[in-house]
């Protein structure tokens, strides 16, 4: 089944002319046809356009062209601009919006030869941890369709886990790549803040957002990160740091590397099976020759509260642009203020409204210093925890999530409980460091994937990928498929 291949497997077959890009793309489209009625990873996809891109790739291949992603079908979260395609952020408010330009990451994928297709479901404006906040309906976990795929990039994770594409892109503001990757059993990488340009990513929280890949193995994550990374004059927060050859870091040799185990992450609310899998992974790292050191991240317990001040404050400012003037499904009013309020009241869903109100409140006159400024100071403490920890270790090992995938509806009525499901992933964004989730086992009954999180130094993706790859090659978890 061509749709089950990894990027490296598919590009090898394409280069040898064993298969065509059209056949690979058709296999993905067939899989969508077969399973997406159950999974609903895609909001929409343009099959004819995908096949036309595949034919163009086949022409290039037959003319002898070589390129890193030539002929590889890659699907995209509905938060990234792809010229000529709809962009809704899984919200009603954008109406029939069609992107007038490509995001930088999309330009890069296309320049590397990828077939860019599909709009993947997500929590509205990337706000959520279950993809239940989409205005386009739920996405289901491919391992158990009564359960959520995680979020906010639930569609991106589910599409890769269900082999509806070869790889996908998502965005991560507080765990929105790593958490769904963990819950769906694929690899999800959040690059260091500034590593990947956000031009063409609809902004949620500008000091936290990063774009990253979902893949079937670590090698593919390294390949995609190499394509996506680099400074971009159109994103002033992108950093002019050299882009290394990430694939070259995948030597399998992690002897002598130091892995930090934060004592604050192995307590309260951590599911016994998740803990057992992470403990087993730590043993595996020792067998592979890594040294385990205990570290402390003393401000861990304050991360979720800090995040929900900073992220909502930034969101309330970023989402001000959705006002019904230049775009959006407008609801008319007697004056502009009434038009704005009615358009936004009708267009935004409950979680987005909740966060806009909270964010507006913590920035409002009289509360700014008490909430927003205070949270920014706590953020410094959280970042310093990590910088101090990285003096003792090359990467940090944690569970990605406290539990495996929960049932649809289980937490949707209680926003705070939903927020607390991100407890292990949020600090990484506040600190601006890199993080990856890789499969590290399964729960017994039902069989659900468990994710292992590795956190790396700022611009430490090479070490992160090296460690993740060595672990993956020594364990069978990434080879298991959801029985669809």
């Amino acid at each position: 089944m061509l749709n089950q291949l990894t990027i490296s497997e598919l590009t090898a077959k394409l280069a040898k002319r064993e298969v065509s890009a059209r056949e690979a793309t058709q296999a993905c489209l067939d899989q969508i046809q077969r399973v997406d009625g159950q999974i609903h990873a895609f909001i929409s996809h343009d099959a004819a356009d995908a096949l036309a891109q595949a034919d163009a790739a086949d022409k290039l291949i037959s003319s002898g062209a070589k390129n890193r992603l030539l002929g590889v079908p890659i699907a995209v979260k509905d938060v990234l601009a792809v010229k000529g395609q709809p962009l809704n952020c899984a919200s009603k408010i954008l109406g029939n919006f069609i992107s007038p330009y490509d995001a930088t990451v999309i330009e890069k994928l296309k320049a590397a030869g990828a077939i860019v297709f599909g709009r993947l479901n997500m929590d509205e404006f990337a706000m959520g941890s279950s993809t239940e906040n989409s205005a386009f309906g739920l996405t289901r976990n491919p391992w158990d369709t009564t359960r959520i795929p995680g979020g906010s990039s639930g569609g991106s994770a589910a599409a890769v886990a269900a082999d509806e594409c070869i790889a996908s892109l998502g965005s991560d503001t507080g765990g929105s790549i790593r958490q769904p990757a963990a819950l769906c059993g694929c690899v999800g990488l959040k690059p260091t803040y500034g590593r990947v340009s956000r031009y063409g990513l609809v902004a949620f929280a500008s000091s936290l957002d990063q774009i990253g890949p979902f893949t079937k193995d670590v090698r593919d994550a390294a390949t995609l990160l190499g394509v996506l990374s680099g400074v971009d004059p159109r994103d002033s927060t992108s950093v002019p740091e050299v882009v290394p050859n990430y694939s070259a870091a995948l030597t399998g040799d992690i002897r002598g590397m130091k892995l930090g185990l934060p004592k604050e992450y192995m307590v309260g609310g951590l599911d016994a099976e998740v803990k057992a899998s992470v403990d087993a992974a730590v043993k595996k790292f020792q067998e592979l020759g890594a040294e385990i050191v205990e570290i402390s991240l003393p401000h861990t317990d304050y991360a979720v509260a800090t995040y929900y001040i900073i992220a909502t404050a930034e969101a309330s400012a970023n989402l001000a642009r959705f006002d019904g003037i230049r775009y959006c499904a407008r609801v008319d009013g007697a004056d502009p203020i009434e038009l704005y309020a009615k358009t936004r009241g009708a267009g935004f869903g409950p979680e987005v409204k909740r966060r806009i109100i909270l964010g507006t409140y913590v920035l409002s006159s009289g509360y700014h210093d008490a909430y927003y400024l205070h949270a920014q100071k706590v953020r410094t403490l959280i970042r310093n925890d990590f910088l101090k920890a990285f003096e003792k270790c090359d990467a940090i090992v944690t569970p990605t999530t406290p539990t495996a995938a929960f049932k649809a509806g289980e937490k949707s009525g209680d926003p705070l409980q939903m927020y607390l499901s991100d407890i292990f992933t949020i600090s990484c964004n506040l600190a601006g460091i890199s993080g990856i989730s890789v499969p590290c086992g399964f729960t017994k009954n039902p069989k659900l994937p468990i994710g292992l999180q590795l956190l790396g130094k700022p611009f430490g993706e090479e070490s992160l990928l090296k460690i993740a790859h060595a672990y993956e090659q020594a364990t069978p978890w990434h080879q298991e498929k959801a029985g669809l």
Partner: protein
Amino acid sequence: MASAEIDVKYVAHLARLALTPDEEKQLGAQLGNILGYIEKLRELDVTNVEPTAHAVPMVNITRADEIRPSLAHEDALRNAPRQSNGLFIVPKIVE
């Protein structure tokens, strides 16, 4: 830190967000709960701690002041709810 009471109606006005009475009531309760949780940040002494606005602090990112191609006029207007004569149409702002 301030008390965990939000005047939802007033904040919604600041946010230019029309809410139904039911939404106001529900949001008030939920946000009270979330703010109650956030209060735990008060435990921390942050005297003499500098705030972090961005994790990778960079300042004065500039480029040459040159005219470059930008989004075409018709592309910028393509998604407008209402437009005419190459302009966005909005309700009357001044009498």
